[in-house]
């Protein structure tokens, strides 16, 4: 399947209702998230900002089906993720979501191309691996191992891996966190382009408030709660933001 075939994204609707998460650490309970309610609309670019410890990653994990909330519900389309079985959650992660991690999480003894293949081999409707790598600008470096790639290139591989399964939702955890300024901006540009050209729904979580202006909608988290949520009718191109 070519990239152009899947430009029209199907309706994505992730709905979180009164989600809360408490971790039990020995005898101490730590409430990391509480009363989180919001929707993710199809094809939007959503940035969630908050300081360290505000619960961003936990929320992302819950949205991606990697973790489950202690209270509340998470629905993806008609599917209730909070009551889904392990098998259903695996299918959700396999078909509907792509993850991009701060430290890329590439498998060190697989080449860039093989790291992408890891995702396509289990996907029902994958994109062509070489085309995805071309899309992220890595067609020349696809046979290099992660240790032979720069941080920016590794993050591009990670994005290609997330994208190659052809998911409807891309969840990016601090995608620029480990990158230098210029490389970080290039990665943001790539994500914006993917949204624009492929119609993907993209959710970025970051502690870097300077990134927020590129989003169509911004959610600010503080101490596990939504402190503020607002639409941004005129998102700025990544080239114009600075930090």
């Amino acid at each position, binding site marked *: 399947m070519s990239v152009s075939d899947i430009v029209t994204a199907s309706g994505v609707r992730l709905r979180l209702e009164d989600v809360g998460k408490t971790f039990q650490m020995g005898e101490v309970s730590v409430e990391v998230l509480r009363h989180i309610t919001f929707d993710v609309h199809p094809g939007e670019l959503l940035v969630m900002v908050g300081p360290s410890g505000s619960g961003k*990653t*936990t929320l992302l*994990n819950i949205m*991606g089906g*990697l*973790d489950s909330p202690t209270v509340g519900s998470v629905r993806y389309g008609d599917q209730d993720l909070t009551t889904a079985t*392990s*098998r259903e959650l*695996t*299918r959700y*992660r*396999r*078909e509907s979501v792509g*993850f991009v*991690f701060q*430290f890329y*999480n590439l*498998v060190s*003894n*697989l080449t860039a191309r*093989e790291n992408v*293949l*890891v*995702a396509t*081999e*289990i*996907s029902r409707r994958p994109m062509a691996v070489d085309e995805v790598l071309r899309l992220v600008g890595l067609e020349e470096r696809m046979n290099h191992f992660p240790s032979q790639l720069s941080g920016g290139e590794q993050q591009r591989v990670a994005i290609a*891996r997330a994208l190659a*399964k052809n998911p409807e939702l891309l969840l990016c955890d601090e995608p620029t966190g480990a990158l230098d300024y210029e490389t970080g901006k290039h990665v943001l540009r790539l994500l914006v382009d993917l949204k624009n050209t492929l119609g993907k729904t993209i959710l970025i979580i970051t502690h870097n408030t300077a990134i927020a202006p590129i989003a169509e909608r911004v959610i600010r988290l503080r101490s596990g709660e939504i402190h503020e949520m607002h639409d941004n009718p005129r998102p700025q191109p990544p080239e114009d933001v600075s930090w």
Partner: protein
Amino acid sequence: MVSVLDRKLLREVRSSGALLLAITSIIAVGVMCFIYMRTAYYNLSLAKFRYYNQCRMADFWIELKKAPLSDVEPLASLPGVTAIRPRIQFFATVDLERVPAPLNGLVLSLPDAREPIINDIVIESGGYFTDRRGEEVIVNSAFARRHRIRPGQTIHLLLNNRRQELQVVGTAISSEFVYLVAPGSIAPDPEHFGVFYIKRSYAEEVFDFDGATNQIVGQLDPAHRQQPGEILRRMEAMLAPYGVATSYGLRTQASNQFLSDEIRGLGVFSTIMPAIFLAVAALVLNVLMVRLIDQQRVVIGTFKAIGYSDAQIFLHYTKFAMALGLFAALVGLGLGYAMSHLVTSIYKRFYEFPNLETEIFPGTYAGGVAVALGCALVGSLQGARVALRLNPAEAMRQKPPVQGGAIWLEHFPALWGRLNFGWRLVLRGVFRNRLRSAVGVFATAMGAGLLMCGFILVSAIAYLISFQFELVTRSDVDLRFKDERGASALLEAASLPGVEWAEPQFDVGCTFIHGPHRRRGAISGVLPDARLTTPRDIDGRRIRIPQSGLAMSRKMAQILDVSPGDEITVLPTRGLREELRVPVAELSDSYIGLAVYADIGYLSRLIGEELVLTGVQLAVDPDPLPRASLYRELKQLPAVQSINIRADVIHNLETIVETQRIFIGFVVLFAGVIFFSSLLNSSLIGLAERRREVATLRVLGYNEWQVGGLFLRESLVINSLGTLVGLPLGYSMALVLSTVYDTEMFRFPLTSPPWVWFGTVGMGIVFALAAHAVVQRTINRLDWLDASKTKE
């Protein structure tokens, strides 16, 4: 097509380096032991089965003085008896021109013309008897090979006091002499003992046995084969007038018993040895896998985030272990195949089969692969289960710091306070990584146990030889007479050239009965103050020959269930042949046979005979010249059934010890594999876990040897704990072995001189140092600046 995950797997296996070597070598040795021991087991079992069928192996033997054939024939019609063959059997002195000392031979009659018979022979060179002459002989192959005797040559045998020249027509083997040992011996000695088959008609003529027999071999129907006792007693009763000396079934026939014990031992070992190695391998692999999963938790979390199912991840990691297992199995199969050939060649030195070859049993090889994969699977299960249970979100979070509480030693401040920083680090490392340390201790305990057990076996054989042939039997030459002789024979023997001292011996074959227990055996009558036969207790102290009653070997006492002071019934095969009540006065210890001693005068009176001799024991001048003239005289001496020269017996046993050493050498090597691999595995994993700690120490100014020293100390602590467990474990293994091999013919002494203990500890340290050399090399090559930046 190879999937990406499989590619990852292959690269991981390849990059495991020394760790891979460690695990695979333990599994490979386990598989190798399985293959070669099982192969040897099946080879010997099959060879025995085929050979016994081919030669129509007898189920029983009856030896008697002399009986007419007509009175023996009715035995064949007894219920349970399917066939009998009466034959003529005599011991003879063999005179080979090239050999200075007289040799012993067993002469057996065969039909003049070839026909299917019980205890048939398999001709290996030349042919069967011809019609051309009576004086033809077929020589057993091992003796012929050793003395380069070929068909067409002539040899001289002293038959019925006459020196006979016989033409060799062939060489042959027979299933009743697969393991050919001279009476009273425990090892084949083709140099000094052979079997000589002659024509029945010639035997009748030369031994004056026309129409008579002195040995009956026969076969039983399957229902009676396992329990021939009842039938044998009936036949003995029928043959009573002809002086039955002994009767026995196949189970207690010397060759069969040695062979069967060996096969039984192989059956036991082929289970125990691989089990030890595979258990160690599974545990070591378990440590490795748990570590690997821990190291790859982010990868696992990522795979789960991408959408890999738990089953796919579980399969991926078990596949990693299975790949190791398969590789090790293939190495093990190759080694096992090579070892099988080596073992067969060693067996060929002791066992005479028509064609003992190393057959390949596909089932065994498949079994070897299966046990290796099974071991790998078991070893990987815990790790793979951890991977399975790992919550993906959890997996990608930073791992909480390892709990660093105080270890139990720290509760003893007086002790802990004295330890320097290095020792504290080492001891904390050992006691905090409990699973890894426990596996290390277990593996080194097994390694030390094997070493200890192997060393005990070496020392046992040496002790056995010195106990039996330096303490108990001290004569240089033993002569056994064909028939009993008067006291003058002692004087004649004493006057032979080179003889310094001679003592009489009077052996009486008898049946010992105590309650429900019966055993055939013999009482050796010796002088009460004999110098050349001195029974001993287990500590080597001399046992007094009682003035009345018997000094019985502990094994015989066990069989009869008697203690000193008990009275038993003795039914002698000579003299008045009446049932006698005799007290057991003393117990002696011996490692060969079932000796029972009595005062020679007491024994003669007991059976109602005059003082007669069945043999003499001689102490001989060690100088070669008088010895040579003694041997010349002995070759000509009539009325002698056998001549045993102690130096030859010891020399022969020492040759066997040499072979034993090859096996023990392998055991030491195998134990080394366990030691080396488990310590290497433990240290390398420790090093991988503590790269940052190592880097920090290097930044602080420690050199690579000081850092290596910490790891060496950790290895030595584990090694010492393991050895501490392994020493008694090895002793217990030897104890079990001594029970398994506690037979009527042979037992091995459980001795553990200091060198056994020190040798085990010393070898353990050598293996630990060898493993450390690899670790030290890794430390020397470590890029510690990079390691200090490692994200934990």
